[in-house]
Every structure is written in structure tokens, then in C-alpha cells.
């Protein structure tokens, strides 16, 4: 196999795509999650059931959606209903995975997309909770997809927009969130993280090819747990890159 060059974003999309479980319902947020879902549906998860916020379920992802309500989110789909159908499906336990982004993440997987700085006098006003909080509250498992640097991987997020494990073990249940839900993975531009079951804290699982553990730790603003053995993610395959470049992001919106 000839070696190929690829961008950090392309690698992140590929690593995220490989996490999709075939035949699972997945709530897909705007942006990178859309590319990852589409790549997965063309590779390892052909029976993936994409769910988009404003009502589209079971679309065949032939063209990349650029908005969570556009027709591509229910193209040849199973149903095109409304946001209540989607959100209530999640609340009723029908959505297996949620794929999300955020501006900040903390060791417990809590995400911030409201403000940087004080809420009422922010340094930066971010888009807001959107469907993120609902996804993080109601889907069974959530996967965050993030740029990796110390400004984003922070000890404490300025706002807990989307619940991860909140303050740690048991906190979700105490707050009243549905039993058995929570974050499972973080895919970043540097690595794949999971969570330590005992402490609910983020743990390095696998570095991206060419990235050292030290680089990951240095780019993380909190103590990242280390497992006994850190794996290394496989680089994008030629086929993954071809799909991404020639069939998925043909307009070069992301890659």
C-alpha cells in the first residue's frame, strides 16, 4: 500500500467514522459528525440509521448535508417528521449514539458551547446549546469530536452546556438524567479518548499515527488518565480518503 498524506481533520473523521455501530440509530450534529456518519455508512456501518434534529430519520447519505434540516437529511429516508419526533425518540430511549461538537470539554466530558467567560458579560458568545444538550442528556452514548488543544480541553468548562458525567460518578443519575446514559468517546485531532469507569474521567485510549503521548498530554489542559497500554489508531485507508475527497466532501467544506 502506497503511503498517502492526509490532514488532521481527515484522520479525525476516519477515526470517528469507525466508531459508528452498524444498525444503530445515531443522532448527527452539524459539521464533522455528518462527514463521519456518511463515511461510516459507506464503509463499516451500511445499516446505520442517521437521525437529524429537525425530523429526518434513516436517510441514505448520498450527498453531504450542510444543515440539520435540509432535504439531504431525509433523502430516500424512512421518515421526515418534526423535531418533536426526533427529540422524543431520544427521550424514549430510541437513539443509541449522539455525535457532538463543542468549544470546550472538561475531564468529565462536559461540553461548552454557550459562552467563553462570564455568561452575562461574555468574552465570546458561542452559538448556544442547540440540540447538543438534548443529545447529551437523552441519547444512550455520546461521542464528542473536537480540535485538540489546551484551550479546548480545560479543567472546568465556562458553562456546562451539554452534560457529560457532570461532577463525576453518579452525578447524572442524581441530577435526574436517564439511567445508563453518558459519554463514551472523544475523538480529537490528536487522539481517541474514552472514560475510566471508576472515576468517569477522560482517559487516553489511542493516539493518532505520528502523535506522541506527550504531545497529547501537553495539549490537554487537565490530567488525562493513561491506560496500561496506549493504542495507535490506524491511518486513513486509501479507500477512506477517496470516499472523503471524491464522494463526501466534494465541495471542500471541511477537508
Amino acid at each position: 500500500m502506497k503511503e498517502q498524506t492526509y490532514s488532521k481533520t481527515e484522520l479525525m473523521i476516519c477515526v470517528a467514522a469507525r466508531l459508528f455501530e452498524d444498525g444503530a440509530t445515531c443522532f448527527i450534529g452539524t459539521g464533522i459528525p455528518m462527514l463521519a456518519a456518511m463515511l461510516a455508512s459507506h464503509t463499516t456501518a451500511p445499516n446505520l440509521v442517521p437521525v437529524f434534529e429537525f425530523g429526518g430519520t434513516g436517510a441514505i447519505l448520498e450527498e453531504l448535508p450542510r444543515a440539520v434540516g435540509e432535504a439531504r437529511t431525509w433523502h430516500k429516508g424512512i421518515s421526515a417528521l418534526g423535531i418533536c419526533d426526533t427529540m422524543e425518540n431520544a427521550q424514549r430511549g430510541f437513539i443509541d449514539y449522539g455525535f457532538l461538537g463543542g468549544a470546550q470539554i472538561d475531564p468529565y466530558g462536559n461540553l461548552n458551547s454557550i459562552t467563553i467567560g462570564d455568561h452575562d458579560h461574555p468574552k465570546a458568545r458561542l452559538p448556544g446549546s442547540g440540540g447538543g444538550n438534548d443529545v447529551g442528556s437523552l441519547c444512550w452514548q455520546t461521542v464528542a469530536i473536537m480540535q485538540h488543544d489546551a484551550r479546548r480541553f480545560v479543567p472546568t468548562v465556562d458553562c456546562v452546556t451539554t452534560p457529560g458525567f457532570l461532577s463525576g460518578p453518579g452525578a447524572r443519575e442524581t441530577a435526574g438524567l436517564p439511567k445508563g446514559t453518558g459519554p463514551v468517546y472523544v475523538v480529537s485531532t490528536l487522539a481517541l479518548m474514552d472514560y475510566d469507569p471508576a472515576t468517569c474521567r477522560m482517559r487516553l485510549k489511542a493516539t493518532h499515527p505520528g502523535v506522541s503521548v506527550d504531545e497529547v498530554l501537553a495539549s490537554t489542559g487537565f490530567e488525562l488518565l493513561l491506560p496500561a497500554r496506549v493504542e495507535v489508531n490506524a491511518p486513513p485507508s486509501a479507500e477512506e480518503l477517496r470516499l472523503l475527497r471524491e464522494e463526501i466532501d466534494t465541495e471542500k467544506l471541511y477537508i
Partner: protein
Amino acid sequence: MEILQSGTGELTQPFDLDEFRAWNRKKSRKLVDKVMPEAEAIGKFVYDGCYIGTELYGTVRCPMSLAREVVRQRVKDLRVCGQGVLELDLWLAAGLVKKLDITYIGLEVYGTSYALRRAVESGQVEKCVEWSNGAITWRLKAAAMGVPFLPTRSMLGTDTLAYSAAKVVADPFTGAKVALLPALVLDAALIHVHRADKYGNCQVDGITGFAAEMARASKRLIVSAEEIIPTQEIRKYPDRTLIPYYLVDAVVHAPYGSHPGEMAYLYGRDEPGIKEWVEMSKTAEGAQAYLDKYIYNLQGHDEYLALIGEDRFGRCVELREKRE
């Protein structure tokens, strides 16, 4: 009812269900021709300080022509229930927004909204009360159902709840914690549909977003439609009526009314048109120039249609979703 937690956000639009009932009682149930120009509709039903919402996104089945008319008429001090892309960006850039019940305002694939950042960080928008998309929709649904609140298991334990006006209580049947979302009654709502008759009976193709809920949660409802159809067509397919006429105050004929956004099965997104706003909105001056070019310098949607031109619309039509 013991309150376990109260969000600290302001209840931007206080509600009284009996007052909403009394309002609805006065709305006519007669079949009256409500077709009017967009200027008249906005002039009549949208006013300074009113609480207003638009349905779906600036890039998807969004009442963009009505949203532009709101800017053109320089309606001030709007309180907005905010989930949007281009439409709310225009209002923010034009300085029309005083308070936001915000869930998401951004440019989707193009990132954070510059207009939102400027408007909030400068203090021009006085309040942001936070909600999730689900929560804001359920608030509309509560009003649509005629009940004072709906419970949810979303938002619990987060700052989204802490900065909202929701309350957490224990479910009296099982003791489980739930967040109660107060009903949200809008003073005015703008919804764009595929087809309407002159009385306001509306049909939509594809996803229905939160049109059914918002239509029922609003005191005044302005509908814009790609096409005005005979009532006979409504009566032939009453199972397609998403919004019945008695909810509607004005019907505006607006072909390409969602441009530069899409309208499923009719036309696709105008990507260059969307990118133009993304680029120009990076600075306040750029945004102002955009508003001049596409709103202030034009009399209305007819002139907008002429400015965009048939060629560009034709390309959007080619890109439409098809039933296959």
C-alpha cells in the same frame, strides 16, 4: 409543588393561559381572504418590543422574505425565541434584537455567527436566556397544547438549565426529577410553507420542523407561501393540512421565499448566496453593506427576486431534492 431548582434566567415572555385562551376566543373562525403584501403583514402584526419567532432555519424552509421585511421596517426591541441561521443574523446585524431565548444561532457548517458575537458581546442584546432546541420546542408545544408547562428529562444538571427559566421538581408518581418548561406564547410568528390557500390553510412537504407547534403557540401568525392554491385542494386532502386557517392572520405570496435557503422539492440552497453573508457579516460594516444591498435598497421581495434573477434561481431549482 416543591421546587428543587429554579433556573436564574428571566421568563422573557410571561404567560397566562387564560389570557391566551381569551385571545384565541376572539380569533375569527370565518373563512376570510387574508392574502396581503409582506409590507402590510409585517406592518400590521409585528411591532416594537414584540416577542417573535421564525420557524426552521435561515437555510431551510425559512421565511426569509418576511425576515427581510422586518429589517426593512426597522421594528425595534424585539424579543426573539432564537434558533436560527441567516434570518436571526440579519435581525442581530440590524440591531433589532433586545432579548433572546436562545438555543442556537450560528452559521452551521460556516461556524459561529459574527453578528451574534457582536450583538451579545457589545451588550446590544440585553439578555440571553438559555434553552436546548428540544426545550424551546417543548415550550411551544406546551402553549400549543394549552397547558402551563411540559416536563422533560433534558437539561438536568447543566448550566443550560441554570441559565434558563425552567424549574426542577420531583415527579409525583415516581419521585424522579424532571425539569418543567414553561409554556411560550409568541406575539408573532413567521412560517414559510410550500402551499397555502387564501384563508391560510397550509401544506408543507418534507420535514415539518416545529411549524405545527409554533403556529399553535402564536397570537399572530404570518404565513408566507411559495404558492397560493385553491381551497378545493385543501378540502380534497385535509390530511395534509399542517396549519389550519383559523390560526393564521396573514398569507403572503412569496415565491423563492426561503432564498438563499432551500425549499425541499422546489429549490436547493444557493451556496454562493449563503457564503456572501458569511463573508460580509465578518465585520459590522460588511454586514451593513449586505443589509443595504439586499434589504434597505429594495422595496420588497419583488425587487429581491429581480436582483437575484432567474438564472440563479434556475440553478437552485436544478439542485432541488426530488422524489425518487
